[in-house]
């Protein structure tokens, strides 16, 4: 059941939070052996929290907009006293001493953190197959990948193992699994949700976002987790009320970038076009749009994200936290062995590529050039939003494929993110909604900076079309 309905029922006395949490754990018991959406589950802690919420409601208090709602948190987001592994061997025993800003906000809003969801190691992957804790499987069909890197979060919401889950999106990691698992995923404007407590992958691209069952829950969760946080120097927004202003709005001009149609599976094209047609019937106008630098967005994104990753992951030396080699040698040897034993193949590959792109002699050719492309792309997006209210495209170029099918072909997996990564390069918000219930195809609506309300309202109009 959707979180907004769940919390209403709890507040009205039609349900208790304890009953809701118990029901979610029944779903988890039923599905988890096939899906593996969670790395850590904390049932007793969740029930204790639920009892407190029920007691507060009984006493006439309002515990907040997420009162009593069970929530999964991607295991790359810090939870005080609850293991945060990032899907990696190196952090398999790591217990953070603090909550991420978003987790604090969820707890203050009455949400109940029930566990930590599986993810690609350090969020590096598009299938949730690179996790040290085993792959997550798609609840719609366990032979298929759930998408990544927030695959555990999307899978949990999809099978009823959480009302809402948080994911993080560096190059599509909220939207890709949301599309593959037929749920809603919102990648907010860069800086509108604090990254404090999010384990960094590509700092200039990373953004925490909600994965939910419907658009209304996306607005509700976004309102809770967004806002100014002095702990994140890129924090750039104040609290707003998107839920209150959520109104289906089909009366818009939508841009269809031709570059975001290329290489898309014909069935996906057809399903997304049907959805666009329905919005057009309600009054939306559409325009073919040309954003020339989109052609270079994916390789430029790969270079920037891997360069930032190579720098961010330098902190895993095994001294202050994380796995440490038993080799007992000099600093450099032990440091190098620690990291060789700690990281999986995909993480090693990206660190090596990032180190190469930042090295003397190659910096200008790769990293600096990619940053220039980012500038061009940002200007072209700004110009485009003078002509249209939002952009629209399929979320993924293909449907979920079989577990193991592409894991040994990294370039092919990187290319699967082609429709997602431009949004992270320019910091814009984007929401994906399923084309139909239980159909693993998503359609994404991209807005200008801080235009979450606009894309939520368009998504709401689209969601209501049948």
């Amino acid at each position: 059941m959707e979180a907004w309905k769940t919390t209403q029922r709890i507040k009205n006395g039609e349900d208790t939070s304890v009953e809701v949490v118990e029901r979610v754990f029944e779903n988890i018991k039923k599905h988890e052996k096939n899906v593996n959406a969670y790395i850590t589950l904390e049932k007793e802690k969740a029930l204790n929290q639920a009892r407190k919420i029920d007691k507060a409601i009984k006493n006439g208090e309002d515990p907040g907009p997420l009162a009593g709602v069970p929530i999964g948190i991607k295991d790359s987001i810090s939870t005080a006293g609850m293991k945060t592994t990032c899907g990696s061997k190196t952090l398999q025993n790591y217990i953070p001493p603090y909550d991420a800003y978003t987790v604090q906000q969820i707890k203050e809003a009455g949400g109940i953190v029930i566990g930590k969801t599986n993810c690609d190691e350090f969020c590096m992957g598009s299938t949730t197959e690179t996790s040290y804790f085993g792959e997550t499987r798609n609840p719609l069909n366990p032979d298929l990948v759930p998408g990544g890197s927030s695959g555990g979060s999307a899978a949990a919401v999809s099978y009823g193992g959480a009302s809402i889950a948080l994911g993080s999106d560096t190059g599509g990691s909220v939207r890709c699994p949301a599309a593959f698992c037929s749920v809603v995923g919102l990648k907010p404007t860069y800086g509108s949700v604090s990254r404090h407590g999010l384990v960094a992958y590509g700092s200039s691209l990373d953004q925490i976002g909600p994965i939910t069952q419907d658009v209304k829950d996306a607005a509700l969760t976004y309102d809770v987790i967004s806002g100014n946080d002095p702990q994140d120097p890129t924090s750039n927004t104040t609290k707003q009320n998107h839920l209150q202003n959520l109104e289906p709005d089909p009366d818009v001009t939508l841009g269809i970038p031709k570059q975001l149609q290329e290489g898309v599976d014909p069935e996906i094209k057809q399903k997304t076009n049907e959805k666009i047609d329905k919005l057009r019937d309600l009054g939306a106008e559409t325009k073919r749009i040309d954003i020339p630098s989109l052609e270079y967005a994916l390789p430029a994104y790969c270079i920037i994200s891997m360069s930032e990753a190579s720098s961010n992951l330098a902190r895993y030396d095994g001294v202050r936290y994380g796995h440490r080699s038993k080799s007992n040698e000099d600093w450099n040897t032990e440091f190098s062995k620690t990291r060789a034993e700690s990281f999986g193949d995909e993480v090693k590959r990206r660190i090596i590529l990032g180190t190469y792109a930042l090295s003397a002699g190659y910096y200008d050719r790769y990293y600096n050039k990619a940053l220039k492309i980012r500038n061009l792309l940002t200007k072209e997006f700004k110009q485009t939003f003078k002509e249209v209210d939002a952009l629209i495209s399929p979320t993924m170029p293909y449907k979920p494929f079989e577990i193991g099918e592409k894991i040994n072909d990294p370039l092919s997996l990187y290319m699967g993110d082609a429709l997602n990564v431009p949004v992270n390069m320019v910091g814009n918000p984007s929401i994906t909604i399923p084309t139909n219930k239980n159909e693993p195809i998503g359609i994404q609506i991209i807005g200008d900076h801080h235009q979450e309300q606009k894309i939520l309202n368009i998504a709401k109009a689209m969601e209501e079309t049948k």
Partner: protein
Amino acid sequence: MANEKITEEEVESISSFARISLDDDEIEDLVPQLNEILDYFDKIDEADTEGVEPLFGVHGKKNVFRDDDVGESMSQETALQNAEKTEDGYFKSPRVRD
């Protein structure tokens, strides 16, 4: 590989900068993969970026200052709780010299 960009020796050298010790088999496996990916990266050479400045981040902020106030800090015990090796209330690092 038509135009090999990165050799086994270079991968070994980069992995030493990145402090990840790779064995010979890993290096052998990585070289063709990295070359394929680097070939793909060359796509960016086609973009005309003459006179374009690099854009490091989209938030537009340069420096963010705060008052230099003393706040609450983590206890020593908390700070050390995730370390595998500690001694006398300190992190124990590998030896720096023989």
